[in-house]
């Protein structure tokens, strides 16, 4: 799972597989952090319940 694991090898299969995995995890992680942070910020700003959400 990490390069320091005994099973890790710097070969194609590891790079592709784990690359894909960490890429996905990265997006999700970043996304969630962004959302939480922004929401906190908005709240501080006193926003909340405005209708921007609606399309």
């Amino acid at each position, binding site marked *: 799972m990490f390069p*320091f694991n*005994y099973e890790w*090898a710097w070969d194609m299969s590891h790079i592709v597989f784990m690359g894909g995995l960490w890429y996905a995890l990265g997006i999700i992680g970043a996304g969630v952090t962004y959302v939480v942070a922004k929401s906190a910020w908005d*709240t*501080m700003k*006193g926003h*909340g*319940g405005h209708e921007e*959400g*609606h399309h």
Partner: protein
Amino acid sequence: MSQSSLKPSETPADKNAYAGLWAVVLFAAAVGFYASLLVGWIVFPKLLYSKQNQPIDFNHVVHVGAVDDSCQTCHYFREDGSFAGMPATADCAGCHESMDSLQGENPQEKLFVQDYVEKDQKEVPWFIYSKQPPCVFFSHAAHVFSPKMRQFRDPEYQLPEEEVEEGAYDDTTCHVCHGFIGESEHNRPYEENRITGYSRDIWGENIAGIKKHTWERMKMDDCAECHEKVKGHKEACFVCHK
């Protein structure tokens, strides 16, 4: 999408109320954060390991001084190439025959002789700092005698033409795994992981698992590290496992 038609108030008073609450919550979070750091780094290790003293306080320095060929005098290889590890009481009795022929004044020796040697040489329940679990096959022979290791120790090494004395080894590298235990005058207490039953030496003194020297940790990764250096590649499982 929020279907709610209610809207939270925006009067200054309420704003402050919310802000205040936020501050308090954040503060609480901070406290919780630091508290758990404290528990995790200080309290947890204390709880995790039990401490015991060795049945006999053994002085390596004295013994190494007293014997001719250091480590291997007591920690020898058997006929079949297996490593004897801890000497049996019978081995010790070679010198420590009986209470009438004590080697010195040390009370620990008296203790040893009367409690073990003279109790028909029953074995001393030593705690083994470096004890590996049942699933591990550790070949001292391979680590001491294999040409690879000899070459690793001394690049000029060649396989000897003539027969060398079987089982005789040079102990220049024992410390790589065992540290300089041969230079200790007292046994340090044996610490055991309450959950796993492992000696603390396996995970290492440092609870974060950080080591400065090779002998400070004995987990599989530590073996692997060296194996890759010496063998130039990772090993199959059936080299160290059984």
